[in-house]
């Protein structure tokens, strides 16, 4: 295994391990809401904190590893820095886990000031461990983003080259000059790096402020300011997990379809849009804070709408066009990637509905919110990652999974997933609040059939894991990726 491949698999396997653990945590929460088991609310909210922060980091780690590997083939990067970013994040995750087990920290991943400090049912050290853990994760993320930014700047000739400026505005001259055009995945890398640094600047600031407040409680913090920065970081970081993982589709789906996915001027412009709107859409988290400057509420709705255009018009449309009447081989890898595009789009529709202010008044902080983000994280990002893993395993083993296996995995992950997601959508539309250890009616009944979906989903994921292990053991071909 080459050094860069080892890095990718370290990120991927750690991410998948955390993902598996957090899936079980999520399941434990769901069956508590379904009233199949009973435990105290303090434990529920501690698990909720762990599930939220852990899942995002798990998906981010997978995306980071794969994207690093893809960009490393474009221009080799320093491996020590990648390992450092990995180590910082893993130490941060350990600190976060310790804050929950045994610390029982339960202020949710949002750590909305002043919740971590007032009415705490956990010891002060747990708050500190959580905040420091999150700061370490942010630091690791910063290192990663800076390196990714350096990579695209070096390879494509500064910001002008990396953004495809000349490709768009001096197209003929650019083609004639024979300079390398950034492949689609390089745009994902550039946007991840730039928006990632933008978001982490806000996250680091509020993180440091909270750590200082933890040390010296007399240091005041503006709650509205803290809320803005928390969501700037949290929303953007979560969003970027999609944009990192979409690079997998750019690279692997064309191989399955025996076609090419070129960088066109339209694709470059679409990613400029993503750069701008991913960074400004977070304002929709503060729609129900009426003291927020009014202009920002308009920015929130407009940016949320516009953020949907690049994926809908270019990436998902492009993916469908790539598959249309191609001689695509349907394997686990291609199935996951294509299904991920579908999940992303459907989750996006749910998000757009909620991003409309008057509708948000009756959906904000209801179960509609976990409904839509689980749609594009679980049936989008996770599938891109699984697709990428299977693409690698399939090419290296020369094997594909049987039709029966694919059907069973499909029923588990798509069928079970749909049941699980529908539970949230239906309950959200019925005004059941999110983040309730004990839900008002009709919450528990809906949670019960959603939990059945969750069992099916876990069955599909376990089958998937078993199949991955089978393929991984049968490595008989040279790596093609």
């Amino acid at each position, binding site marked *: 295994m080459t050094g860069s491949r080892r890095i990718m698999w370290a990120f991927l396997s750690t991410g998948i391990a955390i993902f598996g653990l957090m899936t079980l945590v999520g399941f434990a929460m769901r069956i508590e809401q379904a009233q199949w088991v009973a435990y*105290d*609310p*303090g434990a529920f909210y501690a698990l909720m904190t762990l599930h939220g922060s852990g899942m995002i980091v798990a998906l981010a780690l997978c995306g980071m590893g794969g994207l690093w590997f893809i960009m490393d083939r474009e221009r080799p*990067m*320093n491996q*020590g*820095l990648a390992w450092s970013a990995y180590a910082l994040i893993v130490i941060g995750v350990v600190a976060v886990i310790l804050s929950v087990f045994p610390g029982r920290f339960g202020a949710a991943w949002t750590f909305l000031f002043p919740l971590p400090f007032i*009415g*705490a*049912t956990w010891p002060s050290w747990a708050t500190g461990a959580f905040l420091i853990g999150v700061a370490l994760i942010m*630091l690791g993320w*910063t*290192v990663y983003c*800076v*390196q990714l*930014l*350096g990579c695209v*700047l*070096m390879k494509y000739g*500064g*910001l002008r080259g990396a953004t495809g400026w000349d490709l768009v505005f001096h197209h003929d001259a650019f083609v004639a000059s024979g300079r390398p055009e950034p492949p689609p995945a390089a745009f994902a890398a550039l946007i991840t790096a*730039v928006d990632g*640094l*933008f978001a*982490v*600047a*806000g996250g*680091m*600031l509020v993180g*440091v*402020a909270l750590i*200082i407040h933890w040390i*010296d409680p*007399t*240091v*005041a*913090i*503006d*709650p*509205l*300011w*803290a809320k803005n*920065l928390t969501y700037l970081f949290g929303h953007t970081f979560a969003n970027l997990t999609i944009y990192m993982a979409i690079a997998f589709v750019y690279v692997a789906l064309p191989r399955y379809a025996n076609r090419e996915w070129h960088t066109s001027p339209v694709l470059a412009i679409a990613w400029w849009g993503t750069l701008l709107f991913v960074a400004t859409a977070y304002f929709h988290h503060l729609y129900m804070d009426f003291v927020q400057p009014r202009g920002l509420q308009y920015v929130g709705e407009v940016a949320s709408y516009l953020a949907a255009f690049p994926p809908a018009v270019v990436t998902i449309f492009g993916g469908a066009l790539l598959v249309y009447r191609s001689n695509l081989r349907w394997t686990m890898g291609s199935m996951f990637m294509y299904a991920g595009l579908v999940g992303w789009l459907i989750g996006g529709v749910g998000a757009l509905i909620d991003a409309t202010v008057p509708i948000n008044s009756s959906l904000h902080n209801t179960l509609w919110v976990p409904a839509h983000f689980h749609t594009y994280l679980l049936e989008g990002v996770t599938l891109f990652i699984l697709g990428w893993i299977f693409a690698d395993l399939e090419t290296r083993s020369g094997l594909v999974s049987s039709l029966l296996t694919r059907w069973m995995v499909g029923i588990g992950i798509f069928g079970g997933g749909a049941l699980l997601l529908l539970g949230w959508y239906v309950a959200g539309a019925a005004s059941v609040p999110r983040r309730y250890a*004990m839900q008002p009616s009709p919450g528990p009944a809906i949670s019960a059939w959603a939990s059945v979906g969750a069992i099916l989903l876990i069955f599909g994921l376990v089958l998937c894991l078993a199949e991955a292990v089978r393929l991984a053991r049968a490595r008989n071909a040279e790596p093609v990726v």
Partner: protein
Amino acid sequence: MTLRKLIVIVSALAALVFSAMPVITGARDIGVHQHHLDHAVLMLLGAIAGLALYSGSSDRESPPWLWVAVLCPFIAMLLMSPSLYSLVDQTPWLHSFDHIVFVVLAVMTAYAGQRYVRGVGWATALMLESMAIVAAFGYGVAPAVTVLSPSAAVTQRTEPSGDVAHGRVLFAQNCAVCHGARGEGGEGPPLKNEVSRKDFAQAQAWIKKPAPPMPALYPNPLSAKDVADVAAFVESLK
């Protein structure tokens, strides 16, 4: 002399003069908001100097410089702690030294970024500068008190009237398992300074009719008099 050198010298000199302001004017207690913004100006000058200082054209990574570029903004945010401000505010020379540290951190952030890979310095410098400006609007700064409309003022507080000593005994028997012996919290929320959240009447009403997961202990085993005593004890917790 090249333009680049001129920019370095002018911005460094300006930063130095600005850093010395506390010694020159002897200004004190300028407020956290203004103080953060002053530091943002210093860091802007430092970042400009740092960017202009680098004139190479690296085409390969210099990994150690990445650490400098990433850690300097982080350290700067820690040093911008408002509780440190109140310390240095009292000593002009320390304050000026503190300013010079900020300038150096900004120079390092920008220069190290450029040394790592040319162009990255702009990103790290922008990060630092935006954090410094945004800090002025909430880091150590908050709207002073809750400003309620006039109708809020009519809320009358009821003062405790119950047997605190008896309440202490009842609390130890019935409440301490979840709320801690001295109300420090545990399974249930801490009750220290509960008086700021509920007055005596509200505390009694809550104990009589609590929301799950807290169990209702009224009318059995606690009588109305017992509830008043426990409430009086809880209100006394600091």
